């Protein structure tokens, strides 16, 4: 036990110092918890989300925040859930302990779901800027929201694009057997089939794989009009490359996980012509997109993916507090559920489950080495 003593002392010191910081005017502080994987393979995306929250907080504080007649200040408490479900519940508990008024997060569906029970138990509203699994809002909790289109909505748009724009009649699907990849692939499959496309193959890979030649060859033998991939850029890039090396010339369509600059880097010249969707409008079409890009890049550099959404999620929380005139979750939660506001990403309002209403989905194509929004 002697080993533990200095450790405990150090921990206590850190805790004390953080307590000391927040004590004096704590009633005038709005605490927003921001949770994402800040370390680990997805840390670049997690950091991006966190920066969105911080940008929103800075903006609110700069313009002065008055809630219920009191001048207030937004404080962001960032936590790292390492994209691990068990860690997610620990940090959720931590944020609840620290008395947060609202949560922006988590990044993944796999972490948002277990954490949502803890927030719901404490009545704290949670808006995920990026969890797309339908089950997240399907649990019946009143406190769960998201500002991003879910797999259902995105799958529908993807299928529509594949059928109507690309005129694909035969389709092959690959998914990476993660909650994200499988979720979006299944929704796409459902809608594509309903729209009359024939599914000629459904193959699988993993989020650690680098060799896709076997499944691609198998698909090649069935010669579909389109290959759809549900998964992340790290696999999508090499997959695209191997596809072209195998002499497969059909269209390649991915979802938001594939739509990153990383994809283009990894696929090299083979990336040209690939399609992918992303929830929401393209940045330059977002109502506040241009301004957001300028502000964000000036402060944090390139936007990765979901920072506009985490920005909006923060704004939605604070607007609901303003309208309710209270930072008490119990008071502003009903207001949040009915909120109508214009965010950077578009109009924000929620349906009964907490999903965003009228979520837009945009399709992109790689042209001349970068993602270009299709009209």
């Amino acid at each position: 036990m002697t080993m533990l003593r200095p450790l405990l002392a150090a921990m206590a010191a850190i805790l004390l110092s953080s307590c000391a910081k927040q004590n004096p005017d704590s009633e005038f502080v709005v605490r927003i918890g921001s949770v994402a994987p800040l370390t680990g393979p997805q840390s670049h995306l997690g950091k991006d989300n966190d920066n969105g929250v911080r940008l929103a907080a800075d903006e609110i504080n700069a313009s002065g925040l008055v809630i219920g007649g009191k001048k207030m200040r937004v404080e962001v408490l960032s936590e790292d859930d390492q994209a691990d479900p068990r860690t997610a519940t620990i940090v959720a508990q931590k944020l609840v302990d620290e008395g947060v008024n609202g949560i922006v997060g988590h990044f993944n569906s796999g972490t948002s779901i277990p954490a949502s029970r803890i927030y719901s138990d404490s009545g704290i509203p949670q808006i995920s800027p990026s969890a797309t699994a339908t089950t997240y809002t399907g649990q019946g909790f009143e406190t769960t929201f998201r500002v991003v289109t879910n797999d259902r909505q995105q799958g529908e748009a993807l299928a529509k694009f594949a059928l109507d724009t690309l005129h694909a009649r035969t389709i092959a699907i690959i998914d990476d057997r993660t909650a994200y990849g499988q979720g979006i692939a299944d929704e796409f499959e459902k809608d594509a089939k309903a729209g009359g496309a024939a599914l000629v193959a459904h193959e699988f890979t993993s989020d650690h794989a680098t060799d896709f030649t076997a499944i691609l060859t198998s698909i090649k033998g069935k010669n579909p009009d389109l290959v759809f991939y549900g998964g992340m850029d790290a696999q999508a890039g090499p997959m695209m490359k191997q596809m072209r090396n195998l002499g497969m010339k059909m269209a390649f369509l991915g979802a938001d996980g594939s739509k990153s600059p990383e994809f283009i880097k990894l696929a090299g010249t083979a990336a040209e012509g690939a399609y992918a969707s992303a929830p929401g409008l393209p940045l330059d079409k977002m109502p506040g997109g241009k301004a957001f890009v300028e502000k964000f890049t000036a402060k944090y550099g390139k936007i990765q993916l979901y920072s506009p959404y985490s920005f909006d999620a923060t704004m939605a929380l604070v607007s609901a507090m303003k309208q309710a005139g209270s930072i008490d979750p119990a008071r502003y939660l009903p207001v949040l559920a009915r909120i109508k506001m214009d965010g950077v990403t578009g109009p924000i309002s929620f349906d009964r489950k907490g999903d965003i209403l009228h979520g837009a989905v945009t399709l992109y194509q790689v042209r001349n080495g970068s993602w270009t929004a299709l009209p």
Partner: protein
Amino acid sequence: MDIFLQQLINGIVLGSIYSLVALGYTLVYGIMGLINFAHGDIVMVGAMVTLTVARLLSDSGLPGPLVLGIGMLTAIPACMAVGYLIERIAYRPLRNAPRLAPLITAIGVSILLQNLAMMIWGREYLSFPQILPTRTMAVGGASISAIQLLIVASSTIMMAGLSSLIRKTRLGNAMRATAQNPEVATLMGVNVNTIISITFVLGSALAAVAGMMVSAYYGIAHYDMGFILGLKAFTAAVLGGIGNIEGAMLGGLLLGIIESMGAGYLGTLTGGVMGSNYQDVFAFFVLILVLIFRPSGLLGERVGERP
């Protein structure tokens, strides 16, 4: 038919990669009776070093193969140094300890290498600059690229080279003696410590080459790329008969073909109940089956159980 041929080619290329890595396992296991869990991660180090060099030189205007060559010549000594250090620090002190001890340190070394690599090269998937031509040739309706040919050729050459090194040279004699019985080898004037170090360093050099091939072929490198690759390669080594150089090659090829064919055809055969989603399971099933029915592997004679 061309699809079948393509799957066969895919399998052979994948299998050659497994073989390359399996050679290192077999070499070290043969001499020391130790599964070097960290071998796959040395492959990763090889890939990372090659990639770093290739990135530095990609704009220099040097021809692609030359850049790759320079990368490999950097990676080999780097991996040799890593291998030497691992053996000295983590394995040698435990040479006479109970079996469990070096196995546990081996796992520790593997974790350590991965995380150090992560700190040096970051968490992201790194893309390998496109320095080799991507042109493919058509062979009976299937396509094969230059780098695929290179992989198959080099793993064959390595196997042949290693095999004759062990059969025909003085060093090989000393290695065989050490493998047979280290005490007797010592009596015969063999410096067992040196031989084990050399074996380790040799295995690491092979790993460097494998790393170069893998990252150039897939165009990607990642700090945890070595672990699964290592497991598969180990399976290949066991399948062929661990400790047996030709066995590693045979096991690698077989495993590669099994995986390709499995991923390609299992779905159709089982009516979609099991398909490519079980691709990563094949290797483990093969491993378990081999260990139950032929623990000595295909080309091994010794029975893989305690006497």
